[in-house]
């Protein structure tokens, strides 16, 4: 994820806005309910399932299913690998974003 000279690199999986939102939501806590992530990102159940599957295939997201009373629940969590990938991705985004802030260097 990181180049010694260029610094952290963008994660191709997280360049998708929905996947980045999912990862950011999960990074803020230890776990989150599927319904919360769906409502927060504003996507459908099937879209979220698909995105979560893509993230869990590479080991970024872990899925746990259970029941509260008789109602089935799904909990999502960001793995250590997912947190590292998100951290590197955010650092890369910050580097790109800072190019606007940095005034052009004057030629000496």
């Amino acid at each position, binding site marked *: 994820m990181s180049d010694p000279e260029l610094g952290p690199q963008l994660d191709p999986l997280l360049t998708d806005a929905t996947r980045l939102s999912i990862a*950011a939501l999960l*990074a*803020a*806590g*230890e776990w*989150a309910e599927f319904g919360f992530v769906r409502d*927060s990102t504003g996507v459908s159940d099937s879209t979220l399932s698909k995105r979560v599957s893509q993230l869990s295939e590479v080991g970024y997201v872990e899925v746990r299913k259970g029941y509260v009373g008789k109602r089935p629940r799904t909990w999502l969590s960001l793995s250590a690998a997912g947190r590292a990938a998100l951290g590197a991705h955010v650092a890369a985004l*910050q580097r*790109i*974003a800072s190019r606007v802030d940095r005034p052009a260097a004057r030629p000496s």
Partner: protein
Amino acid sequence: MNETPTPDQARDALRDVQERRRQATEAAAWPRWWWIGGGAFLIVLGVVFELSPGFARTWGTIIVCALLTLAAISTTRRGHALTGRQVGVGHRPAPANWGVAILAALLLTAVVFVASKWNLPHVGVIVDVVGGVLMAVAGPWWERRVIERRTAGVE
């Protein structure tokens, strides 16, 4: 396909990350009315214990054990679901928090010791009223601060 975002797109993405973090922090916190209800319960309990020492002797331990059990259950996934919290944060206290907790426990013990030595009147109810008001007023602020510290790391 070039997927490198422009600086503006990167800024938008960073804003989105911050917004998602804020959403998750909100969802992890107890609803404010739980804090207010908890504070009111503590005050009522203190007054009842003060007015009826017999009730305190009979039910005090049971009530405290029940409250501790409820507090433990509330930290589980199911407990979160039952109390309307959809995000769970870790419960691993930082080393610095242990120091603060030990200091607070020592302070509380010292206050109780001094109060019992000097035979101060109404100490129990005063502690409960102050604790209840603090819980209702400062509880949500304190919880948000703790959650934000725990979730810090992805800026």
